[in-house]
């Protein structure tokens, strides 16, 4: 039992399951899955579907955080990617043509990759702090997206494009498959090559890694590039969901959700050992939390209050000082209670 409890995924899973249980108790329909035209419907399916953009961004964020960094620009990159894709589709005049879609998606994801490479350059080559370097793009990115869309919210009508976020394959949402593929590829690259181990080494002890001959610059650069690329894909999914490129709203605050998902999954913000599975659980937890909040009748706009609470709790649990403070609490209580005769016996 204790071996199970010590597993790093134990607490993230407990949180997720508790949340699902809470929902199930308060509304049994939560776990109900119905079948229409061979497609599955239900709250859980919605969570699988809606969590896709967050999942992609959080995967990238995991890699970045593992190098002791942070990427604040993912939301802006999503906006850029969505704007690029939809503008290309709109300008083509043939929104259903698969070739057009391929070009649009390719270019959009490429734009995301370029953004990521830019961040990586600033951080790994110029040595600028990650927060600030990605802040630049966070600021300018939405401006660029607005420029691409000409200041409007670009909307399109393209069934194949719509399919990506809203379509079904084998009864499950297509977006979920995108998540799965992304998880699989990231996990494969990190764990089947040496990248994961070397990334952790760089994140935990950059100097020792340098002395061991690890090429830290390339690894850090690569992490930001991956984050940009994944944010590019997330931007496509987001725009496909609403069939519009909204430069201001696309991916707003997603960087925060992603950071939270990573931290909930048990990866420390101080860098180092990371867990892809943990991030996956974390992303599902965030999405479930959002759906719970909505169900509670709270307007979605108020969600941030709950997020703030979660951030504070998670960050405090990770804070060594807070744990020390809490760790000393029982002892303090004991000395306090031991002043009474009953307490003294209980303590011994």
């Amino acid at each position, binding site marked *: 039992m204790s071996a199970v409890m010590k597993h790093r995924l134990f607490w993230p899973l407990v949180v997720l399951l508790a949340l699902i249980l809470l929902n199930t108790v308060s509304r049994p329909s939560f776990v109900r899955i119905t079948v229409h035209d061979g497609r599955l419907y239900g709250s859980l399916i919605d969570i699988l579907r809606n969590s896709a953009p967050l999942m992609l961004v959080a995967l990238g964020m995991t890699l970045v955080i593992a190098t002791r960094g942070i990427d604040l620009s993912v939301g802006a990159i999503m906006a850029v990617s969505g704007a690029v894709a939809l503008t290309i589709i709109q300008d083509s005049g043939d929104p259903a043509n698969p070739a057009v879609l391929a070009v649009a998606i390719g270019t959009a994801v490429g734009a995301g990759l370029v953004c990521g490479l830019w961040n990586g350059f600033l951080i790994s080559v110029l040595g600028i702090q990650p927060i600030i370097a990605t802040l630049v793009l966070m600021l300018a990115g939405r401006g660029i997206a607005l420029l691409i869309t000409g200041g409007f919210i670009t909307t399109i009508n393209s069934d194949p494009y719509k399919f990506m976020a809203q379509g079904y394959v084998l009864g499950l949402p297509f977006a979920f498959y995108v998540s799965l593929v992304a998880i699989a590829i990231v996990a494969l690259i990190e764990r089947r090559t040496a990248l994961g181990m070397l990334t*952790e*080494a760089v994140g*935990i*002890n950059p100097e020792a*890694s340098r*002395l*061991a001959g690890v*090429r830290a610059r390339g*690894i850090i650069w690569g992490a930001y590039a991956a984050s940009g690329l994944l944010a590019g894909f997330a931007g496509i999914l987001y725009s496909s969901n609403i069939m519009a490129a909204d430069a201001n709203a696309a991916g707003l605050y997603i960087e925060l959700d992603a950071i939270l998902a990573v931290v909930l999954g048990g990866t420390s913000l101080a860098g180092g*050992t990371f867990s892809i599975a943990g991030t996956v659980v974390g992303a599902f937890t965030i999405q479930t939390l959002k759906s719970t909040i909505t169900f509670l009748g709270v307007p979605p706009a108020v969600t941030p209050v709950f997020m703030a609470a979660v951030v504070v709790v998670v960050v405090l649990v990770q804070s060594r000082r807070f744990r020390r403070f809490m760790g000393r609490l029982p002892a303090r209580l004991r000395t306090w209670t031991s002043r009474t005769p009953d307490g003294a016996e209980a303590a011994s």
Partner: protein
Amino acid sequence: MENALPLVQVTGATVRFQSDTALDDVDFRMFAGEVHSLMGENGAGKSTLIKALTGALPLDAGVITLDGRTVQFATPHDAQLAGISTVYQEIDLLPNLTVAENIALGREPRGRLGSIDWPAMRRLAREALADLGLDIDPASVLATHPLAVQQLVAIARAISTDVKVLVLDEPTSSLDFDEVAELFRVIRELKSRGVAILFVSHFLDQVYEICDRITVLRNGRLVGEYLTTELLRIDLVQKMLGRSAAALAARPRLDGYEDPDPSVTLSARGVTVLPGIADADLDLVEGEVLGVAGLLGSGRSELARALTGVDRLEAGIIRIDGQATRLSSPRRALSVGVVYSSENRRTEGLIGELSVLENITLALQAQRGILRRIRSARQRELAASWVEALDIRPPDIDRPVGTLSGGNQQKVLLARLLALSPRVIVLDEPTRGIDVGAKVEIQNLVGELADTGLSVVFISAELEEVLRVGTRVAILQNGRVVDVLPSDGLTTDSLLALVARPEEDES
């Protein structure tokens, strides 16, 4: 002055860090108007004693009296208020503020409404600086001044209060010759005013020039207190290192370089990385262990880092098998078979949270590149074979390396480097802080490695160990290799004499 009561008296000072005793029942005293030096190798307890004295660290046992009264300092600030000021090696000032603020902040003159009275503050600073014979603009920003001036500003801050005891921790390590002379002038001036000064430095010449009294610590214990005039330099070093003083009278005279051996694997000429080493020459023969002996500050670690591409050379050339090779990074050095184990195992060696397995395979994997991952089975096999070969305990390759004992951590680090099949391995203090059994194991291991044709550079502060392990010994002084001798002809005592001899050639 001898008969006067000491100004500071520390009795039975003991400081423990978990299981380690950093300071064990040490007595220490300082007199007003005297310059006192605290001597000892790394880990002797010098800095622990200083920290206890200046309120940066609490004593676990023992009493400090100042002017006859028992004192206890919760913070360095408390100590300052009581008259004990410290100037640290890494100057603890605020480079972004003005000189005046650095001197007066914390007790700055206030005008009406409680606002800072800048003119008064500058005046106060100018006076404090004038005391030291320093004429600089108090309104200038501290960072615009050279380090020597910053050091003097730190002293100005320290003495602008009612200072009784001034602690100078390695104040001269970044100063040039003239700057040191200027500092000494100030120290003498303060001394004449009756301030007790604690001068800690690893430069023996400076200690002998300025200090009246020397206290020697070794392994956290007091060795003794001596008047400088009554303590020979060789005796001092002997007391610091813990060797008996026998057979020191006849100092062996030895020549410099031997003829370069035909089987030289690595040769260094004129290697310079300031301020640590200047113009160092070294030849490393195949299958030998070259011990490196030198006092603290002689450039031991700097030499190791320069030879292995960790620090870039400012001048000099390194040849490997006769080929000039630019070791521009550790990665480059590793790829030509020159590997380095740092004296700071935790910060510059191991990746604490990763497993023994990952730590052992790290360098090899980094050499192979990201894509050519070593298969898991092969990794385990490799790690397990090293764990067995080096007898790493517990033999659990999945355990985080940070949980191992010091000796086993060092072995893991060695395994990482040996897995690269290197030609030259540079070990900086590989046995520091590990228990005796593991120490002997590592020493024996080094010998075995050399027998297989590997060239080993073995750096240690313990001369006995250097002699035991090394086939030849290189003697470092002031960042220069002054001698390379076969260890057969040396005893610890004769080596000690060589290491401690005063610099003859000041150039």
